[in-house]
C-alpha cells in the first residue's frame, strides 16, 4: 500500500522541521551569550535538508515517486562574531571588549514561522490521510 510510504514522508518532514525549530531555539537562546575570545563565541546553527527518493519501484511496483526529507547535517553559519565595547562585563578583555554571536533575530523568527507552517502542513497531510484510510476501510459497509 502507498499509505505507509506517505506516513513515512510526512513523518520525515515533521522530523526535519523539528530539527530546524531546535536550531532556531538554540540560536535565539544564545543570541546574547557573551564570550571573552572570538573563537569561543556561539555559532549560529543551520540544518541542511536533502530529498531522498523512494526507489522501491523494483521491489513493490507501487509507491513510486515519493521523496522523503533527510537532515543531512547541521552546520554552523560561520559568521564573524560581533565585537562590542562593554567594560563592565566580567568577560571583557583588557581593552573592555566582549564578543557576541552575530545572530539576526528577525531572520531566526521568520525561520521559526516557516518551520511551524511546514510542520502544520505535515500534520494536515496526516489528518487527510487518516480520513482517506478510514473511508477505504468503510468501503462496502451498508
Amino acid at each position, binding site marked *: 500500500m502507498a499509505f505507509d510510504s506517505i506516513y513515512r514522508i510526512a513523518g520525515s518532514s515533521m522530523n526535519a522541521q523539528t530539527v*530546524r525549530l531546535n536550531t532556531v531555539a538554540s540560536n535565539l537562546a544564545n543570541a546574547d551569550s557573551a564570550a571573552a575570545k572570538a573563537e569561543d563565541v556561539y555559532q549560529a546553527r543551520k540544518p541542511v*535538508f536533502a530529498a531522498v527518493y523512494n526507489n522501491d519501484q523494483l521491489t513493490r511496483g*507501487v509507491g513510486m515517486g515519493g*521523496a522523503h526529507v533527510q537532515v543531512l547535517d547541521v552546520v554552523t553559519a560561520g559568521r564573524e562574531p560581533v565585537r562590542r565595547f562593554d567594560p563592565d562585563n566580567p568577560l571583557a578583555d583588557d581593552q573592555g571588549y566582549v564578543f557576541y554571536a552575530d545572530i539576526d533575530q528577525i531572520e531566526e523568527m521568520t525561520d521559526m514561522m516557516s*518551520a511551524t507552517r*511546514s510542520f502544520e502542513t505535515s500534520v494536515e497531510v496526516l489528518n487527510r490521510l487518516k480520513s482517506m484510510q478510514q473511508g477505504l476501510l468503510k468501503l462496502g*459497509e451498508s
Partner: protein
Amino acid sequence: MSIRIDDVVGVHGRALELRMQRSEILAANLANEDTPGFLARDIDFAGEMQRLDPQQRFAASSAELKYRVPTQPSQDGNSVELSVEQAAFSKNAMDFQTSLTFLSMKFRGLKQAIEGR
C-alpha cells in the same frame, strides 16, 4: 445472467489507485517544501485515465511523473509552492472520497439486487 464484479467496479478502481499514488507524490512535494533544489512533481490524472486500456482495469505500468512549472520560481531551485501543493492535495483527497462514495453506491446497488429488495 451473472454479475461481473469488474463491470461493477468500472474505472473507479484505477481512479482510486491513481489518487493514492498522486497523494504520495503531493505529500512528497509538501514534505520537501524547504529542500533546496527539489523539483515538485505531479501526475496528469486525466491523461493517465485516458491511457487506460478498457479491457484492463488495473494498468500494469505505473503512472508517468511530470514536473510542475512554478508560477514564481525561487532562487534556490526549489519549485514547490505551498499554496498550490496544499490545494492540489486537498482536492486529491476530496476526489479520493468521491471515488470511494461511487464505489460504495455501486456495492449497495449490488447488494440490493442480490437481496431482491
